[in-house]
């Protein structure tokens, strides 16, 4: 087992990995940019080193510097988290060359599954169902014919893409050529690569993904699915496991297919095979993420398996600690990503300083957060503040618990999606479980702040106005000095019924 691991990341995922290491009695080394000196991950690690400027390409993306720190601090492993260098095959190779384990799959597996076109080819070879479409870059001269063959609606996507850039939905032939041109130009400017491919557009699609875990002995297991259909700006907001739309039969089939695909590239560590599924449970391979995922905790909650610890153990050479047949689904878990963003303004990120924070607690609630009073959301990094996860004995129980936990959450100083998430948990369509990736678009009423909330807030505002200092205390000192009290027992009539 490792003695000391460097965490090449920041924010909640760095904190998550540090917690796993502490529980495995492994020492941790944090790295931080100039903007992150006062972050939680720096505080919680055993050691911490500055690695440069606040922009990612000045610090968290400079693999060579991170490896230098790891060597100097005598680390025997580097955990990349998600984002940054986590799916960088070259970095994985360099770690190994420097005799430091890259805690993740082999560089080869990252390379093969990282490219959308290559991974599609591997999936095809493994007989994984694919969305009908071109099998590689579509050439300009064949594009129209291909589009006709696939049929409408169809989607044009950038080969090197991600996050919605270089994507175009086309409903009819007459829009096709113009959309193709725009997608290519967007792809060119975003990724310096104008290759695009075309595929069938699935109506009311659900985003379903299978968590897999592999070891270096060739064992691969799956930990069932997650449903991540509640999205905005093509990014996940709410995830749950298991999916309310996946039957036992489909679950087993998807799991088997995901394991088969992972074995094709001798996958080790944690990974996710993403599928798009229609409302009749037809599913098609989307892509594979060769790293730990933001939403991994919901799978941990329903299986009892600590995915991050398991990643570390298998990377150090240990076999998987569990077998497929021993894994079952226990209850239901939901994750909400609490983000500094404005739901009333197209979920635009809302940087600023969190003045005051209060986290939910109590049964079945897990808050994976990097928040503290004074935490600043900068434009350098993702505006995610926290992952709020709940477990319930069934989906309904989990939804009610999430609502309770969201109501306990206080974040003063930033605009967040807390209110929106709060109302989502009360929405009858969400409760019914009929989800698709267009859910938020179709439920714009959830973005509206109820008038009662404004009323309550403005009354509090009015009372504060009445106090010059802004510090209202209608009882001058709500604390009692008990021994004095007993002597002068006085009867206070505040809100009393007697």
């Amino acid at each position: 087992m490792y003695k000391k691991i460097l965490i090449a990341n920041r924010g909640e995922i760095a904190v998550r990995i540090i917690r796993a290491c502490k529980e495995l009695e492994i020492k941790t080394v944090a790295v931080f940019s100039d903007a992150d000196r006062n972050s939680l991950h720096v505080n919680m690690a055993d050691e911490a080193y500055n690695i440069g400027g606040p922009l990612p390409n000045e610090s968290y993306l400079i693999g060579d510097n991170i490896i230098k720190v790891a060597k100097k601090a005598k680390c025997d492993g580097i955990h990349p988290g998600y984002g940054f260098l986590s799916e960088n095959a070259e970095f994985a190779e360099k770690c190994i060359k420097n005799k430091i384990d890259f805690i993740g799959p082999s560089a080869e597996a990252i390379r093969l599954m990282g490219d959308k076109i290559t991974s599609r080819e591997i999936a095809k070879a493994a007989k994984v169902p694919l969305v009908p479409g071109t099998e590689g870059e579509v050439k300009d001269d064949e594009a129209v014919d291909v589009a006709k063959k696939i049929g409408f609606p169809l989607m044009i996507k950038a080969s090197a893409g991600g996050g919605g850039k270089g994507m175009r939905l086309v409903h009819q032939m007459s829009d096709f050529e113009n959309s193709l041109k725009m997608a290519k130009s967007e792809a060119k400017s975003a990724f310096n690569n104008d290759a695009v491919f075309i595929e069938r557009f699935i109506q009311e699609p659900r985003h379903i993904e299978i968590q897999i875990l592999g070891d270096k002995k060739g064992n691969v297991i799956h930990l069932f699915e997650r449903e991540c259909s509640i999205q905005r700006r093509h990014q996940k907001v709410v995830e749950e496991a298991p999916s309310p739309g996946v039957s036992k039969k489909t679950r087993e089939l998807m799991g088997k297919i995901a394991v088969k695909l992972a074995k094709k590239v001798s996958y080790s560590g944690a990974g996710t095979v993403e599928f798009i599924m229609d409302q009749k449970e037809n599913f098609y391979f989307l892509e594979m993420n060769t790293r730990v995922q933001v939403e991994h905790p919901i799978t941990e909650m329903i299986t009892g398996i600590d995915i991050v610890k398991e990643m570390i153990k298998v990377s150090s050479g240990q076999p998987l600690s569990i077998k497929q047949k021993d894994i079952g689904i226990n209850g239901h878990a939901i994750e909400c990503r609490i983000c500094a963003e404005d739901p009333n303004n197209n979920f635009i990120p809302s940087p600023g300083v969190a003045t005051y924070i209060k986290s939910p607690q109590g049964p079945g609630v897990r808050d994976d957060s990097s928040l503290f009073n004074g935490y600043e959301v900068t434009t350098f990094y993702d505006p995610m503040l926290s992952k709020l996860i709940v477990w319930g004995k069934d989906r309904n129980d989990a939804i009610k618990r999430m609502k309770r936990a969201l109501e306990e959450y206080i974040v003063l100083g930033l605009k967040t999606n807390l209110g929106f998430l709060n109302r989502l948990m009360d929405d009858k369509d969400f409760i019914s479980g009929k989800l698709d990736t267009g859910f938020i678009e179709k439920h714009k009423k959830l973005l509206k702040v109820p008038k009662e909330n404004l009323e309550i807030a403005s009354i509090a505002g009015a009372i504060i106005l009445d106090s010059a200092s802004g510090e209202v205390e209608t009882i001058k000192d709500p604390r009692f000095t008990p021994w004095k009290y007993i002597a002068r027992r006085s009867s206070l009539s505040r809100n009393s019924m007697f």
Partner: protein
Amino acid sequence: MKYSLKIGKELINFELFPENNGYRIETDEKKFKSELIKIDSNLYSMILNGKTYTIALKKEGKIIEIFYKGETFIFEVPSTRDKSALENASGIDKIVAPMPGRVVKVLKASGDKVNEGEGVIIVEAMKMESELKSSIDGTVTEVSAKDGDTVDLGAHLITVVADDAEE
């Protein structure tokens, strides 16, 4: 005492009467019996007509920021000038930068006619482009930014004036 609070373009009026250990509050429509207790630096417990509410708030100068049930409300203490201005000037939309960022493209020039909901400028921040829209039908009267500018939060970008508004 009478008080007003401004939120967005709306003005809310109250009258407060100290009563027992709390307040009686009257708005144009409703009456409340209220008590507000400070619990922590920014945390307050309010009892309103017997029901309890947890509220976080920060008062800085004329700005009162209130967090309640997942939402942040930003109130402003209106000045006397504000009050009269507010009543007349609902026909002016001053569009400002919603966060620090870069101006990608100014879509309208001074003198252009715009419709409600029409985009007037595109800004980029945190790797995302956003089109800012006019909230009224009117004419662009002022443009303070050009393509490629980096702008701070709240920086003025464009003003649209309704055709029937007096500035």
